[in-house]
């Protein structure tokens, strides 16, 4: 079983991050092609491809593209989400670090399709290495006339700016990211139906297209080879390929691009197999429910993982072997969300912190059996009650961990120490 490389097709070409090499491998031919098409034709290709958002939500890309008003009464913006903060995910990092022009080309095409003249790449502050590569690549693109005024003599203008974050996971959430770009605290904004969709009123209340790095990186290939070609890969509802960032207890951690619907176990093999005995995987980043080993006989696509009780999420594929103490691991997860909660809404702000305090008490040997159900109830009280997905994302993993590993919690509470440690192989 091998990888199926679309985004990574040329990633191992030496110097592909440089413009001339990228051009030698067909770089920016998609942009030329797109400029020759009508805007609607471009959008229709994306529709035909069935491309879905790779940032986590899996929302069909073309619907957003098509939702942008077709007139220019207001400025339109492209907002590329390069904040990659989902624990366990590092695909956008590699896409920017090693294949910057592919992303830039995708962004320009998107800009053309939605009548936008300005785009922002929001790169998290920690990602200075990818940011510098992007900087150099963008400057190259300007020099070559792919960016700026009158792109390739087409009369189309497009400026692309880098906006760096400064340390906040929440800013990966699209509306919080808008706040952050507009110079505010990184807190989310009202969502539909409480406010218009970003495609109608996003940045500075103007139509804004928000897509993830991987999503936009798919665009050049789709335009070049046609939506049908892309849709021919993967499953019916989950088309194309997906990059999984495999980390944890595997022999060859790293990013692997596979066809949607690939069996989970095959991905594990690609990553060199599990170190030690597989205990569980978290297939879509820290926010998705944990998947115990016995349930790992599942395919990697949105629907299959859904029905397996978890989610594809961002493709942050974390592998845990049997040395991992679930209680400690989940305490670390809870601590992450408590640290990253923006503090805007009550359930997320108070609930996440409360859960950490309970975990700490349990780990300190002061646990009570009722704490387990208390944790579950707090999860219920956070889930779906808060402004953005962070609250939900804080609840799901904990809830799932209790569903699958209640006995480990009970053991810890009864004996004041980890079941795994007793077996003498705890790592976390």
């Amino acid at each position, binding site marked *: 079983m091998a990888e199926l490389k679309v985004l990574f097709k040329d990633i191992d070409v030496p110097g592909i991050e440089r413009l001339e090499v990228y051009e030698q491998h067909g770089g920016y031919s998609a942009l030329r092609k797109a400029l020759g098409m009508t805007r609607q034709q471009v959008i229709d290709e994306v529709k035909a491809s069935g491309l879905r958002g790779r940032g986590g939500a899996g929302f069909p890309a073309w619907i957003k593209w098509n939702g942008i008003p077709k007139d220019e009464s207001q400025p339109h913006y492209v907002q590329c989400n390069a904040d990659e903060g989902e624990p366990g995910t590092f695909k956008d990092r590699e896409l920017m670090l090693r294949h910057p022009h592919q992303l830039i080309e995708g962004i320009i095409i998107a800009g053309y399709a939605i009548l936008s003249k300005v785009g922002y790449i929001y790169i998290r502050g920690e990602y200075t290495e990818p940011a510098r590569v992007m900087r150099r690549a963008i400057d190259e693109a300007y020099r070559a006339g792919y960016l700026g005024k009158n792109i390739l003599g087409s009369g189309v203008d497009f400026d692309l700016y880098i906006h760096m974050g400064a340390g906040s996971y929440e800013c990966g959430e699209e509306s919080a990211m808008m706040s952050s770009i507009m110079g505010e605290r*990184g807190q989310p904004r009202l969502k539909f139906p409480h406010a218009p969709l970003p495609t109608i009123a996003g940045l500075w209340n103007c139509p804004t297209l928000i897509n993830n790095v991987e999503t936009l990186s798919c665009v050049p290939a789709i335009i070049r080879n046609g939506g049908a070609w892309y849709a021919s890969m993967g499953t019916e509802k989950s088309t194309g390929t997906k990059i999984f960032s495999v980390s944890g207890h595997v022999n060859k951690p790293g990013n692997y691009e596979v066809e949607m619907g690939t069996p989970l176990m095959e991905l594990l093999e690609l990553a060199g197999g599990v170190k030690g005995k597989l205990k569980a995987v978290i297939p879509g980043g820290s926010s998705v429910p944990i998947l115990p080993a016995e349930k790992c006989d599942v395919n990697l696509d949105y629907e299959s993982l859904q029905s397996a009780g978890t989610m594809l999420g961002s493709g942050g594929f974390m592998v845990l072997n049997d040395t991992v103490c679930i209680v400690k691991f989940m305490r670390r997860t809870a601590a992450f969300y408590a640290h990253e909660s*923006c503090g805007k809404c*009550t359930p997320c702000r108070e609930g996440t912190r409360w859960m950490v*305090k309970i975990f700490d*008490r349990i780990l300190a040997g002061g646990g009570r059996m009722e704490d387990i159900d208390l944790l579950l109830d707090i999860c219920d009280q956070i889930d779906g009650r808060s402004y953005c997905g962070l609250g939900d994302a804080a609840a799901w993993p904990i809830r799932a961990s209790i569903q699958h590993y209640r006995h480990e919690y009970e053991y810890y509470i009864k004996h004041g120490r980890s079941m795994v440690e007793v077996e003498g192989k705890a790592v976390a």
Partner: protein
Amino acid sequence: MAQEELVTIEINGIELQVPKGEMIIESAKRIGVDIPFFCYHPRLGKGQAANCRMCLVEAGTKQPDGSVRMMPKPQTSCTLPASQGLVVFTDTVAIQKARRGILEFLLINHPLDCPICDRGGECPLQNNTLFYGPAVSRFIEEKRHLPKAFPLSDYVVLDRERCIHCARCTRFSQEISGDAQLEFLKRGADMMVSTFQDTEFTSRFSGNTIELCPVGALTSRAYRFRARPWDMKSQKSICTRCSNGCNIWLDYRPNRLVRVLGRENEAVNEEWTCDRGKFGHEYISSDRRLLSPLIRRDGKFVTASWVEAYHLIASHLRQAVAEHGAQSVGAIGGAHLSNEEAYLLQKLMRVAVGTNNIDHRLERNQVAGGDTLLARLGVPFTQNAIADIERAKTLFILGADLVDEQPIVFLRARKAWFRFGANVIIAHPEVTETELRFDEPVILRYREGTEKTLIHGLLYLVLQSGKAVTSALPSEELQSLQASLSAYTPSRVSQETGVAESVLRETADLLGEGTLVLCAGRVRNHPEYAELVGALVNLTLLTGNGARENGGLNILLPEVNSHGAADMGVLPDMLPGYVRVSDTTARQRMEKLWETALPAEPGLNTQAMLESAAEGHLQVLYVVGEDIAHKYHDPDLARRALENAGFVVVQDLFLTETAQYADVVLPAASVAEKEGTFTNTERRVQRFWKAFNAPSPEVKPDLNIFAELAVYLGKPLPVFSAEQLMEEIGQAFPAYAHCCYDQLPPEGVRWQTTSLGEEE
């Protein structure tokens, strides 16, 4: 205004029609369904709202086939707009659980120190917990600890442990008052509200945040531990600290004022107050109030009975009139009296004493009441209502620091810009707090005293631009104006005023229909007042704002009843209703009403009275409710006048510096201890009610004092009540005919200037 579209929605099975886009939390009120909330506030933008999550409801939409598709998650009703076919459930089991959850979350870090919390008894957190909260908390961990009772300013105390992060105060300071002095620091559970680096909270509107706070996190330093809400009574009143006429509640315990709260009046202050108003009424319950009349005996004040005092005053008045004529008597004051009292004061002087020596103005400019505006725009001072400011296209703030001088007018001006995107032009010689409250307004930093040149310069450009509404001026006037303006070229004006030509042009471009000019002290007291106002009137007319709602000229006034005093004829040259004393027919009308002859020649204005007193000509000087020795624009003159006047009567709440010079001091009741009406700077006549008794039975409302004094002068002016007097005022000044108490609506009425036209 286009009338709003209605949509049909369903709340808990009840169908109702509401305006499209109305927030469901509001729609629910219409059918008496209570939805608990904390962070929601109708006057705060919803952009930053919906953070407390207390107002969650279940919602769905009716499908064509009649079925209902429910949204997967509960929705915050405070931000959920009503749309056709929306179906809402506010009290399902799920929602009840959610509410318990939210309240449990809010309480885990709340100190629950209700026994020593000033909010206790009127606390949304207490109330919502009572009705929707969990019976017990399952939180056994350590609560957060933060400094308690942290004094942010002389007015506001902050208790961060009590804060529930609803963001009402921060939103107020950023959206309404605009100083943005309150903001959240940090994030998540560490988030806390703060001023920059814990520096002083200097906002002029800080008091409002106390009322907005749904818990006891922001409390009033003045009200601290003074009462429990249920120990207090409230009375409707009007703020006396400036001419804006904010509606307020006086909260009091037996005969003592405890605190002041904002009272809703959409037309005036919406629901806000400035800090001067909110914290500036302590004087009412001060221990230094005068408690009985005082008479000076060999240099010292001794308490006296009213009978003695009246006899003494009356005898001096009679003697003065007999020996030196009525011109030797004068009265100063009225801007702090109610309309009824002001009316009676001038009637007392004109009818019982027989002089026109009466004036309420203490500022330098004492040219006849609102002359130019009256003649050319048909209004005494202000063309627009405060609420009109919202609709203005361009605000031109000339020589005024509104934040300081006209706080509530400022809030409207800011709303016009923040909510409705009005352009803002600020002309002032110095940096003002006001200009800091707008993002990059056009700033005209002119040289002190060059206002007239500046306006002429703008007129020049407006005429040049060709957009001027020349038809607004009679052709010969227009020609002479154009001639006189030819000298005011941009370059010259720029030289004289110090304002860059480009800025002058930018400003001129913004002027046009919907330009609303706001002026205050600097213009009122300008050395060239008449010419300056003349120029402003020309600007108003030529920009087509002669008779507009969303544009016009407004010269805002200083004191709570400056406008009313002028309306009531507390002016040496005008009878009630801006009727010239020299106008025979009009005077005769008044003589008929008052059944007596009236002096025909104008009296002395304040300045003239004081000068004549200083020279020892004035036999009796009657000062009512004004500390002229301290507040008159030329205090030395005032002091010399008080020293050299034959006999000085001072009527006030306190033994002021002025009172120190008096031969007789009369103790007057405060606004809380009497009833009446004030007329604010936009001509709005508003009622205030008696809250409690004066500190002593010897303290009388000014109305009674004037009436009784008249009796001692042998010219009784029978009055039984302020209400009855208002009816007489209505006859004297028809514009006030609609102000009889039984007709006066809760929000008051702006009296119609049309009746003025008839007079001329």
